């Protein structure tokens, strides 16, 4: 598909992408009195929507039965607690991409205090709506993904990307 059948938003080539803002909701809090591990991923998944809107693969993409995006793999580092009502700022860096996938990392900060709260490295795949199987990005998306990736290429690789989970032996 050459052109998106709906309006595309203006492309934001600032690096990293720094558009997503959120607030920790009351129902995101668990019995430990902080945002539950699952809701960090809810917040990050909403930041993925913000990223996908950049290349017109957001809500309209699925609403119009063109395609979907599925997460294949996710890695979260929980760096510091956030509490109910806290303001969140999430930045996004594209690390790599190919014909069907993008590899990227979100970084969540406490928006007022500035500290790092968490990171989320992800592998996202384009899915054809009808077959529900992987498919190449549509042309309108690929053109923008390449421009975003080029803009992000000069950023250093975050230390939280490419991590292996383990308990260090003493």
């Amino acid at each position, binding site marked *: 598909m050459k052109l998106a059948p709906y309006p595309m938003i203006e492309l934001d080539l600032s690096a990293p992408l720094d558009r997503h803002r959120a607030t920790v909701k009351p129902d995101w809090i668990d*019995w*430990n009195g902080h945002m539950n591990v*699952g809701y960090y991923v809810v917040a990050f998944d909403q930041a993925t929507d913000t990223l996908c809107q950049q290349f017109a693969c957001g809500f309209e993409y699925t609403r119009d039965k063109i395609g979907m995006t599925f*997460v294949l793999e*996710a890695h979260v580092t929980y760096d510091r*607690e956030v509490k109910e009502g806290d303001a969140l700022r999430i930045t996004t860096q594209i690390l790599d*991409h190919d014909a069907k*996938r993008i590899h990227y990392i979100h970084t969540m900060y406490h928006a007022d205090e500035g500290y790092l709260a968490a990171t989320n490295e992800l592998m996202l795949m384009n899915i054809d709506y009808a077959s529900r199987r992987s498919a190449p990005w549509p042309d309108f998306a690929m053109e923008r993904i390449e421009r975003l990736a080029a803009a992000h290429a000069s950023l250093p690789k975050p230390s939280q990307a490419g991590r292996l*989970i383990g*308990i260090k032996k003493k």
Partner: protein
Amino acid sequence: MLESLPYELPELVTSAPLDTHRSTVLPEWVDWNGHMNVAFYVTAFDQASGAFMRNMGLGRRYVDGKLGMTFVLETHVTYDREMKEGAPMRFATQLLARDAKKVHLFHEMFHGEQGYLAATNETIVMNIDYASRRSAPWPVPVTARLDLLWATHQLLPKPAKAGRIMSLSKKK
């Protein structure tokens, strides 16, 4: 370090992997793609970690008694197949490693009826002192239980999906 816990601990299950946790995909876990959203796989796995911790004697009473908590430090999920609303889930949990304050767990989520692998979750969970909200050694009876569990779990092979580093070049 807590020398004891002021409540009765449940009977220890040492079968390996731990295969006690069951759950169901709730309606509010489903997203606009018509399947369980990525975040709620993590919620479902977190509940499986909760089942593991209850087996260690660290359930709700551990938190409500203001003794301690357990925090997830890091988690890695592979999304292997979709799950729809109402789907039953079965979890198998393997203890991969443990030290004085942490456990390294590997969960597998299966469709409870069709048997297919839906997702995996490798995670590090740390013990937290309630008052200071900082890391602390496991209570003594928990360390004893972890040692008993390790005796059976260390015999399991390392899961193929454990220890992954994310990269585009690895997969075709």
